[in-house]
């Protein structure tokens, strides 16, 4: 009897083969099984990402190289002409500048407001749950509803805001026109600061209580504790909010909802201070039918978002504090 002919003892595994005991089926290593499980769980997202993001992005890239308008018979390939036009288009750059300005004002304001509210409702106060709910409620109001509410509230002739001013003998203001429209837009952002609050609140509850107690014993005051313990431990959360906030703010659609006529053709009737990049994209796509040019605008925005995100990571790498080094090798 050769070695090969010796029957394997019950429960033993044939060398070099996976599978169950007995060696009748190939065995799968733990690593392979884990990889397989990972891809099975991740596949719905990956498939969705490929079909609903990568494919349309590639399609948009192709469109950006053409004069396609969706319906006309004589569209053609024009190479990078749309990109060249874009870089020379002052309306585009003005719109981008306004979007950038909106991002650098609205994101810090909403983070500060949200964090402040989170600190407040994290304290042991009566009816804390009620306050948390009330403060978060605006964040769950659909943007269309919020837009209509703000429009009614700030209408020059019939809005409550001017009603209040009139009580104090102040003449009505054209809130939804320049130069006030930008402030109304900022108010809509702050009104929905509950979103930032809820994430900051989760972060605050993750801060170890013993660190605060140790600081207090060492004689640190409330502000010092907040600045030296709470904020560093919250910094990953704040970074997340900054990145997603910047991305969301440059894509905001709220100016259109606040507009006099939130329609395809009415998109440019938005007060100039609120005519931001995505409004311009919307107008080029749907009012002017310039699918090629609008796709080029979107691709440029995509690249800019990547660059800005990269810069945020680069400049915050020294100030964001992780409890566990996320990049450390095990």
């Amino acid at each position, binding site marked *: 009897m050769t070695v090969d002919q010796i029957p394997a003892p019950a429960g033993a595994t044939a060398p070099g083969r996976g599978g169950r005991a007995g060696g009748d089926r190939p065995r799968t290593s733990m690593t392979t099984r884990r990889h397989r499980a990972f891809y099975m769980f991740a596949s719905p997202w990956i498939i969705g990402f490929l079909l609903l993001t990568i494919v349309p*992005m590639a399609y948009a890239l192709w469109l950006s190289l053409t004069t396609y308008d969706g319906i*006309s018979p004589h569209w053609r390939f024009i190479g990078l002409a749309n990109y060249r036009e874009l870089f020379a288009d002052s309306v585009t750059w003005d719109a981008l500048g306004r979007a950038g300005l909106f991002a650098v004002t609205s994101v810090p304001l909403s983070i500060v407001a949200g964090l402040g509210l989170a600190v407040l409702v994290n304290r042991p106060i009566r009816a804390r749950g009620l306050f948390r709910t009330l403060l978060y409620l605006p964040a769950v109001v659909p943007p269309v509803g919020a837009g209509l509410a703000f429009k009614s509230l700030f209408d*020059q002739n019939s809005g409550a805001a001017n009603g209040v001013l*009139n009580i104090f003998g102040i003449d009505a203001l*054209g809130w939804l026109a320049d130069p006030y429209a930008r402030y109304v837009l900022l108010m809509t952002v702050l009104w929905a600061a509950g979103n930032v609050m809820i994430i900051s609140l989760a972060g605050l509850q993750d801060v170890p209580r013993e660190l605060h107690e140790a600081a207090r014993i060492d004689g640190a005051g409330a502000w010092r504790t907040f600045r030296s313990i709470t904020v560093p431990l919250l910094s990953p959360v704040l970074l997340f909010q900054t990145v997603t906030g910047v991305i969301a703010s440059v894509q905001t659609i709220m100016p259109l909802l606040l507009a006099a006529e939130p*329609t395809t053709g009415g998109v440019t009737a938005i007060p100039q201070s609120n005519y931001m990049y995505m409004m311009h994209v919307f107008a080029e796509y749907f009012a*002017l039918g310039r699918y090629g040019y609008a796709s080029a605008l*979107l691709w440029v925005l995509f690249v800019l978002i990547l660059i800005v*995100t990269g810069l945020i990571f680069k400049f915050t790498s020294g100030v964001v504090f992780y409890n566990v080094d996320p990049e450390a090798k095990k």
Partner: protein
Amino acid sequence: MHAHAGGPMSRRRFLTVSALSAGGAAVGGTALSGCALPVSTGVGGGGETVTVMAKAEDISPELIKQAQRDTGVRIVTVKHDITKLIAMLTSGNPPDLVRGVGAVDTAYFAARDVAENLDPYFAKSSVLTADDLDPVNDLWRYDGRTQGKGPRYGMVKDFSQDSMYWYNTAHFDEVGLDYPSESEPVTYEEWLERAKRLTRRKNGQTIVFGGSYNGLYEATNLSTLTAAAGGSLFSDDLSRIDFTAPAARKALGWYIEYCRTKVGPSVIQPDPNAWDGPTYQASRMAMTNSGYWLGGMINTDEKLAKASRLAPAPVFEGGPRVSPCQGGTGFWMPRKARNKDAAWRVFEWFFGEAPAKARAGGGWGIPSLKSLRPLMPAEQDYQRRVLRAQEAELAHFSVISFTPYITADGFKALFNQVAPAAMKGEISVDTLARRLNSTINEQLERGKEQVG
């Protein structure tokens, strides 16, 4: 730490992926709207099915049931949306009938060869006969150069002459102004003067708008005003615009003055109701530039109906009387529609049978078939009064050509981008005219190139 199967994704990596996904969604999500996504026709069950792209108010669920009873054809509706229409046309799966605005859509779709020539269908129809068609249906004709001539691509469901205006006599009484004539037009300058006197303000708020005059679209309003000043907004081949030409300059100047004086809603003084109806009904507007159709709303309030008058379209001093229809909403049939015969049956039924008769009696527009005119509401004195004014105005109807090289929405978007500065007095009307020429002609040039 590297993300691996079964292990947690690092926060940094999660943020990176989130940022990439969100950025990608910005490109991908919007681009998707332009993709040629197949849209189901909803065909199924027995009998023929016709897909109609319409707004909810065009075809109610009751009307759909009635269509099945009357014609045996099942109607499936798709909400009217230009991006969806483009997607359906591109994917070769268009609706069988599509809502459209004859005044501004006919040339656009016909020139792009996506609309079916309906002349052969009209020729065979015993319901929609040539001698019964109101001239307003010429809005749906285009011969490649001129709107109003050539093959028919659609039909109007009902219409108004949209340069006319309604006024509320109570406001005129309040400020001691004579009522405008219901048969003879005032000049645009007189209209604006009256609007100024009728406007009431308090604490920086406009309590009563003296008058609204925005037309249905900026493009149709300005081309009508230009025609009333004795000119044409578009060149003969419809490929260029010239606001510096005397008639167009006069029209533009008048409209900018209307906006600057803030006697009525405009892009720099928006009406929160977005249209005149509720404001006029609430007695916060003395004159509204709306045609006969607004009577459908006014007549629901007897007090308001008795105080309201319908007046002819104004004229410019020495200019012609021009009173076109700026809308002419109806349906057209895509050239690649799959169920053309069934669609035509629905078309005939909608425009010539029970629904058309019901619309004619509703007072929301003038029927597009002459034979249905006797059904227009005339039971009350105020209804007869309005009808007389309207019937006299029909003599001044004409079709004003709209270019196939830009959409009304596109015109509006470009106009609104440039004009507010002039409305606020920051630039002169002449500067505005030159800027409009530049920006709109650029778009017209693109459109012409694409139509070929």
